[in-house]
């Protein structure tokens, strides 16, 4: 999983209308995104394609800041990472 600053850069690239540098770790998501169905789909698709993590609309709604959302994604990414899976010998 990339660090939070790389995550922010990738989100800013995905949402073309968003000026570079608009988001910080403390940014309030609701001030930058309206979670109507299409924007939510774009975000869910972005996370799925780039980090192979499935997030839900609830994950978006329940996150206040960019950092909150990043932590949810990171937790899911780390828990599905092959390095954390115990392989029976």
């Amino acid at each position: 999983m990339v660090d939070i600053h790389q995550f922010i850069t990738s989100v800013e690239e995905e949402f073309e209308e968003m000026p570079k540098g608009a988001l910080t770790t403390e940014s309030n998501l609701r001030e930058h995104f309206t979670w109507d169905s299409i924007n939510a789909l774009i975000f869910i698709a972005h996370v799925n394609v780039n980090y192979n993590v499935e997030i839900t609309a609830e994950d978006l709604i329940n996150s206040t800041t960019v950092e909150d959302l990043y932590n949810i994604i990171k937790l899911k990414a780390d828990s599905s990472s092959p390095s954390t899976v115990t392989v029976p010998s």
Partner: protein
Amino acid sequence: MAIFPLPGIRISGIASAVPRGVYHNRDYEYLTEKEKELFIKTVGVAKRRVAPKGMTTSDLCEAAAIKLMHELGWDPADIEILVFISQSRDYLIPATAGILQEKLGLPKSCVAFDISLGCSGYVYGLSVMGSQMLTAGIQKGLLMVGDVSTQTTGPRDKSTFPLFGDAGTVTALTLDPQAAPMHFNLQTDGKGYKAIIIPDGGIRNLVTPESFTEEKITEGIERNRLQIALDGMEVFRFSLREVQPNIERMLQDAGKNLEEVDYFVLHQANRLMNESIRKKMRIPPEKCPYSMEEYGNTSSASIPLTISHALRDVIQEGKNRLVLSGFGVGLSWGSVYLETEKLVCPEIIEI
């Protein structure tokens, strides 16, 4: 697991028909200008074909079949199987396949039946009809697949109204021992049956006066119980989760890798969804054709319609290796690898 090869069946031709009437989504007053722009760019449907009241899927399939049989030089008397796949049949009873058998002048010795599937229907249909032709030794068959979805979308439901378009298609299959085997992977998850549903009008919930009462589900989504309800988020997540492994497992069974495939024709559900699947699978954009900008989500017709629309020139020339993948209502999904050679593929017919 339903992962299997099907030898001895060749696609000889594909034809598609659409209604003449065009609906431009920029004219949809229920969305703001900004919403329209975002919808057209992200979901990918700029316009779509809409059948007038009374025009059925079978009317579209019939027009396509007459054209295709003429171009193939097929005599209706030689066709021994007709399978009609749709979720918008002519009547609740009887099956539509028999009506088409009679209209097209096919013999009484012809096997004819319906299958009720949507987005995955084309792939399932190739498997069912091909298998029956192989076991029964049937030489020629017509697979008729399509939907008129626009009659059952609520005009004040922004999650479905601007999405769907109408189309009917026909695919001619021939028994041919020399044909390269098709390879299928078919799957189902009925847990998600409510994700795309028309709740009333079947036997579970008979039509009552309340069926016609429009309910406000959320802002921008009002519909009655005879109109389609779509949980877009659920279908989106299902598709991102299931399509890639389904195709990869099928190709593994077929002994092919992604580079050996010329075109991936995906069900035209939602441009963002298809692009996400394409990027995850690292398929170059030129191998992933679209028809939804022009025709919308045409349900079961979307795969053959995309071939008619976007691959007509290449499919008529030489050999092509295709992966077709349908996914959605059911939840039902499946993919097939197949090879084509000089298909007969007339221009899309308008009626």
